[in-house]
């Protein structure tokens, strides 16, 4: 399993031709207390860079973009009742959705953990 990152602070963990997506620790720390997350429904088709989910804090709303194209397998229903999971465990329990990849070559343009860390340090 490999984890990639985007400049918009999403992470994607790939396992074969399926993957799990969420927002990074850095992203949640910037947003503050998450009060609401809207995740895509199973079956939705996503395009790389397109709107995939919404995450809201008290005073801000952000779109979460699809790091790669694909079809949603499931959204994380746990976030509906407990959006704070995105704060407490953004890169684990606080995942947003799982999808099947339609073009794994899209992963090539993403960063690995070290590159993302360097990117964040530079912000």
């Amino acid at each position, binding site marked *: 399993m490999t984890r990639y990152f985007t400049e918009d602070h999403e992470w994607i963990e790939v396992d074969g031709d399926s993957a799990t997506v969420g927002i990074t620790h850095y992203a949640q720390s910037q947003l503050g207390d998450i*009060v*609401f997350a809207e995740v895509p429904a199973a079956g939705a088709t996503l395009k790389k860079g397109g709107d995939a989910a919404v995450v*809201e804090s*008290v*005073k801000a709303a952000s779109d979460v973009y699809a790091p790669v194209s694909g079809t949603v397998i499931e959204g994380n229903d746990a976030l509906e009742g407990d*959006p*704070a999971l995105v704060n407490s465990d953004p890169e684990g329990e606080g995942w947003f959705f799982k999808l099947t990849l339609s073009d794994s070559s899209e992963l090539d343009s993403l960063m690995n953990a070290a590159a993302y860390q360097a990117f964040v340090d530079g912000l």
Partner: protein
Amino acid sequence: MNAINQSGWKPEMGNAGETAPATYTGNKALMLEEALIFEIGTAATTGVDLADAPKVAARLGNLERHRDIGLPGLSEPETVRHYTRLSRQNYAIDLGFFPLGSCTMKHNPRLNEKVARMAGFADVHPLQPVETVQGALAVINELAMWLIQLTGMHGVAMTPKAGAHGELCGILCIKAALAARGDPRSVILVPESAHGTNPASAAFAGFSVENIPATSEGRVDLAALTARLGPDVAGVMITNPNTCGLFERDMKAISDAVHAAGGYVYCDGANFNAIVGRVRPGDLGIDAMHINLHKTFSTPHGGGGPGSGPVVLSEALSPYGPLPYTARHADGHYTLIEEETAQECHPHSFGRMTAFHGQMGMFTRALSYIMSHGADGLRQVAEDAVLNANYILRSLEDVLEAPFADSGPCMHEALFSDNGLADGFSTLDIAKGLIDEGYHPMTVYFPLVVHGAMLVEPTETESKATLDQFIGALRSVAERAKEGDPSLKSAPHHAPRRRLDETQAARKPVLVWREPEQLVAAE
């Protein structure tokens, strides 16, 4: 000694050093806690005496409401006390300085309240025959004439109910004008510093919205704007003076460029207070501009409304303005142009945007204010508003970063950022510190183009003494934020409530009151 009365009390100073214990009631002398009407009222209590209903056979279509509605009642003394107690937990202009940027919290003259309550205006129905409301129509018409003259525009739509509704009105005029020439333009350009209502209004009417960047000076980037113009751009929405408190020097050039490219220019006039009587927006080439009567023309904000947002229109857009409107005839008689006569008098109107004639109760107040000031007084309003803002800007720029201070004077509001505060301290802490000092904080975190924005709008109705004390207080709070005074992080300490948990409110919204049993049952 011949004592007349020896039972009188003896003054005692007590020990002032003692700390205050918690009180039994939770009250703190004049700071009184107040329960909800649902906790103190009952279904059997009422504060209104009514005649008994004559006995008749009901004709309610067998739809009688049998179930309890759940409305508690209070007697009149309880009602007056409930709301009086609540009122005392509010900050208000009547209490003190309220420098909320972009909101123009000026004094609300009481003469305005008096005239608005005259029965001839307050107690007339919107659908009365026009012969019976000639005085009301005269007020609308007189105010309309003032607004046209003060702005140098061609026409005015009086019905919009607030600033955002006025934006919608202007945008619909643009839509109608484009439709009339069969032009499918679909994009409205809005600067990043714009108020949220601008993009929202454009989208509400079906346009797509694109941002245009600002220059490092805090003004619209004319070159970037011009580069984006094209056959898909319906128009721009520019705030002038803008939300950074600066006059858009290039306004005329912007208008000319937009017109040359076939678009229209909407101006957000929320900040008209800075220029009223000194600049006529009509001289800058704009096509439509709303005027918040509840800002520039002093109608009270009422804790969130009502407002009123008449829109002045250029000759190009006037034909498309909404119904109804008033018309004055040579003999001094007024008529209402509604759907019926529109075919003849106003055939291109985009239609009605609200049920009746607009915010009559605000028109009387605004006209009273305008007549009180007159042409000379309104000019003085703009000058004093701008003078007060610059005084604040220059008095505080050494302690708070003022990102555009080098761009020249500001208009009616001074903008600061939170750069330079101690680690972990932000605009929020300064705002809450000001509450303890007895002020309403400035507008915070708006405009979005400045980090931790603090937008201070003093208005012209504040004295120099008030400004001097505020400057001292803000300086003191800013210094504490720069030093990292931990007590500032927990401010306010002296308000009716400490900081409120907005995260909990949003995560588990409780928007209506429920009886405790209902809550238990729902768990």
